């Protein structure tokens, strides 16, 4: 139609998806604290109240935000002034940029136009994601270096080595998925997972690439600096790691970057390994179960079921981040390196080899 229509669609998509992600970030900070409390037999946040309502402490993120905004914004004396201030931006900007390529629903047809429910359907897809998420390490490293303090420096050093090591396994663990679905575009991969495997199972990435899934999950946790790989901010030995010298809103930018990583990481995991927006056994026209049973579902219900399934899966994997954090203790540094290079890398290579072999055999008709 008109360029105005395209512009409106683009803005709407960006607004919807970014507000979904950032809203989830806000909720997650509360879920993390409350979940931690319940796992550890505590009560957790329950003080902040609006009009006498506490609602299980749901207003705490709001109170946190206000507190961060009004705290004194200081720069330590010995810090490199420019780099110190740049570091939180380096951390936050790539985290937000990674949201762009995630398909959160099937293409929709409005007024004769096919609109993909994805901010940008790049033809390098997953590679863009790796490229941009690789940039987040600079925020951590720069913060560690510019603070001009011992513990942040150690945190930054650990972070750079850890990111380098796990980026390799992360990239290689996804190659299997790319081979099976024959594309690097996330929208294509999500669409490919709508088929059935052996006529029973949905052809989700986790069923065709179980080893790849485990490797990717592990690498994802390492890339997001989450427990058990949160060595850059290991509070028991490094005070608070790379953001020791940060306060007020700059600190909250680091926090936000970490939580956005969790949300985007979960969304990518869902897209690659859990069918993205696919609802099990739901085709465009309606449900089609393997036994030959099928019944029709109206188009609007199909769309909302699919978007809903994407949201539910993403929220679930965000919860898994929290769940794992309060279950597994932190690795020692040499253990992280050993796991990355001596276990994950060979396993990822074996996974690629076996996937290639199986695909070749299927191709040959054996």
């Amino acid at each position, binding site marked *: 139609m008109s360029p105005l229509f395209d512009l409106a669609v683009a803005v709407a998509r960006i607004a919807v998806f970014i507000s979904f992600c950032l809203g989830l970030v806000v909720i997650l900070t509360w879920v993390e604290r409350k979940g931690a409390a319940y*796992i550890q037999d505590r009560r957790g946040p329950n003080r902040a109240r609006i009009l006498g309502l506490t609602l299980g402490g749901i207003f705490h993120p709001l109170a946190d935000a206000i507190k961060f905004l009004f705290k004194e914004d200081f720069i330590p004396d010995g810090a490199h002034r420019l780099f110190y201030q740049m570091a939180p931006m380096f951390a936050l900007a790539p985290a937000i940029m990674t949201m762009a390529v995630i398909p959160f629903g099937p293409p929709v047809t409005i007024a004769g136009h096919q609109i993909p429910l994805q901010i940008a359907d790049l033809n390098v897809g997953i590679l863009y994601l790796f490229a941009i998420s690789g940039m987040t390490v600079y925020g951590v490293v720069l913060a560690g270096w510019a603070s001009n303090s011992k513990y942040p420096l150690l945190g930054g050093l650990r972070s750079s080595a850890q990111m380098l090591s796990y980026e390799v396994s992360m990239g290689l663990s996804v190659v299997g998925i790319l081979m099976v679905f024959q594309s690097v575009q996330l929208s294509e991969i999500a669409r490919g997972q709508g088929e059935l495997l052996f006529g029973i199972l949905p052809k989700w990435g986790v069923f065709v690439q179980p080893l790849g899934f485990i490797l990717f999950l592990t690498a994802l946790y390492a890339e997001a600096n989450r427990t058990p790989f949160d060595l850059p901010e290991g509070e028991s030995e490094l005070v608070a790691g790379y953001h020791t010298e940060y306060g007020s809103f700059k600190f909250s930018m680091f926090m936000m970057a970490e939580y956005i990583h969790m949300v985007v990481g979960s969304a990518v995991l869902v897209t690659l390994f859990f069918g993205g927006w696919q609802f099990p056994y739901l085709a465009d026209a309606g449900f089609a179960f393997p036994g030959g049973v099928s019944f029709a579902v109206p188009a609007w219900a199909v769309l909302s079921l699919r978007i809903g399934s994407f949201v539910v899966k993403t929220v679930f994997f965000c919860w898994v981040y929290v769940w794992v954090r309060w279950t597994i203790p932190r690795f020692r540094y040499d253990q992280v390196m050993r796991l990355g290079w001596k276990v994950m890398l060979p396993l990822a290579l074996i996974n690629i080899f076996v996937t290639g072999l199986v695909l070749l055999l299927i191709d040959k008709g054996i």
Partner: protein
Amino acid sequence: MAIRVVKVARPEKMSFGESVYLLEIVKGLGVTMRHFLRNMARQENIPTIEYPEVRRVMPARFRGCHRLMKRPGGAPRCVACYMCATACPAKCITIVAGESPDPKIEKYPVRFDIDMLRCVFCGQCVEACPVDAIRMDTGWYTMPENTREKLIYTIDMLLEK
């Protein structure tokens, strides 16, 4: 007893299942999920005491804030003998004695201040008192205050508790 080295028995090697690590992680996740769900379902079983509103009941022999005892008529039982002030290792008790209006009693405290900032809650004053006038059985610990002056407890405050 002579010092001897105790050799702690450790498992020599992890079994294969343990060294693969994944199964053990899933088990651990199960444990934490059990705690989570149990606490979600029964919030009243969480052992946390929500402090300012709810206070732990202190055991009977807990040495908390002091109080001064009264005679049946309401006058302080204290005879201003300075035994507590002398026994106090922190020198936190200040007593000014005056002549008692009651002819049977020699002295009474005009001032009896305890500097709670210096008190070490040792209970020596209670031990020293010959007439059981000071006790530490309120079960309360020092309340936080904004100024130092508010933490010097006077005789009126101590008699009230």
